[in-house]
């Protein structure tokens, strides 16, 4: 099956049903971004995203209910990323080290607005960079994935009190970073 340049042919995945194809399409971007924010760099995020989807798609019995399957996939993805962090000791959260093509700009944004937007994003991303891996992971699982503290604790293999501590420290550090930058 040939792929047109620049297009994503998700139907090239050897999935048996339309439901499985839809599952893949709906979750690829979200899972990649979650893992990327945990591990902090694109190459590792790519590898781990692939690993998470291969694990998930090999268990087709779990894909009957797509909502539950998405939640289950998130668990696989975050566990894969957390295990990676454990194995590697520490993954530094660095700036993006891969510039492939210039990002497509909105025709409605002026160059100044583009620069401001980019600076603002970099400024916010750096705010996440001041957190430890566990604080950032706890924050992502709680605030982005919307998991209750108990489940975050289970995924991080720690107590609920410890998770609350990570979440609180993460939020306080992020707040103080923003206040310093504003000042």
């Amino acid at each position: 099956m040939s792929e047109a340049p620049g297009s994503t042919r998700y139907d090239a995945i050897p999935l048996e049903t339309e439901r499985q194809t839809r599952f893949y399409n709906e979750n690829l971007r979200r899972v990649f971004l979650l893992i990327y924010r945990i591990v902090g760099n694109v190459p590792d995020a790519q590898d781990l995203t692939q690993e998470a989807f291969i694990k998930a798609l090999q268990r087709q019995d779990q894909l009957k209910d797509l909502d539950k399957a998405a939640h289950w996939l998130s668990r696989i993805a975050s566990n894969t990323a957390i295990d990676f962090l454990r194995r590697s000791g520490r993954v530094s959260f660095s700036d993006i080290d891969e510039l492939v093509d210039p990002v497509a700009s909105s025709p409605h944004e002026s160059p100044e607005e583009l620069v401001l937007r980019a600076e603002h994003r970099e400024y916010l991303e750096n705010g996440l960079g001041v957190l430890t891996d566990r604080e950032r992971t706890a924050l992502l699982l709680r605030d982005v994935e919307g998991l209750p503290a108990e489940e975050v604790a289970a995924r991080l293999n720690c107590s609920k009190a410890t998770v609350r501590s990570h979440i609180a420290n993460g939020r306080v550090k992020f707040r103080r970073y923003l206040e310093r930058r504003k000042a």
Partner: protein
Amino acid sequence: MTGHVTETDLALYVSGDLTLWDIARVRLHAAGCDRCRRSAEAYRKDRTRVRDIVAEMPEGLDWERLSSEMTANIRVGLAAGECVAPRRHKVAGLGWRPAAAMAGLAVLLATGWWLNMPPSTTQALGRAFSAIMHGRGSSVELVMEPLGPFVEATASGVEVRENGGRLGVGQGSATPVAFSVTSQGSASARYVNGDTGQMTITSVYAQ
């Protein structure tokens, strides 16, 4: 309230990660304290900021190319997984050839059994089948006339019958206690004399 809410409590309050008592305490304090209320609002907005950052692609990343690459790699990974996965062996249904062979074997065994039966038995069976086929009577009595010695244990003793003759070992007034008959052609009986309590065991073997 003598003091402000701690930063930690405010940070946890905005996501409901405090106990019910602490949530009520912070809410009550923030209702009357501008500083803590503004801090809580800032933490609430920070949660939205984090969600917004995470939803955006990293700067300069070509998502189309990256997603195509990941899709291709996932395809390869799944195919590789299929190659190394243990095969699920299907239980094959019996084809007609094995079934025919087993049917033939069954006929052979049945024929061998029929040919090795004593003639009187086969004759009796034959009469019974004939009666059934021709519908003679509503019931068919099948009488097996054994060929060779026949040993029977009864209440009066153990008896051997062969070719119309019989030989018995009686127990008279003894009370029979137990009978046993073996498939090897023997019979055994135990009798207890009600007057003397004497037990007699009689065993007869047919060979």
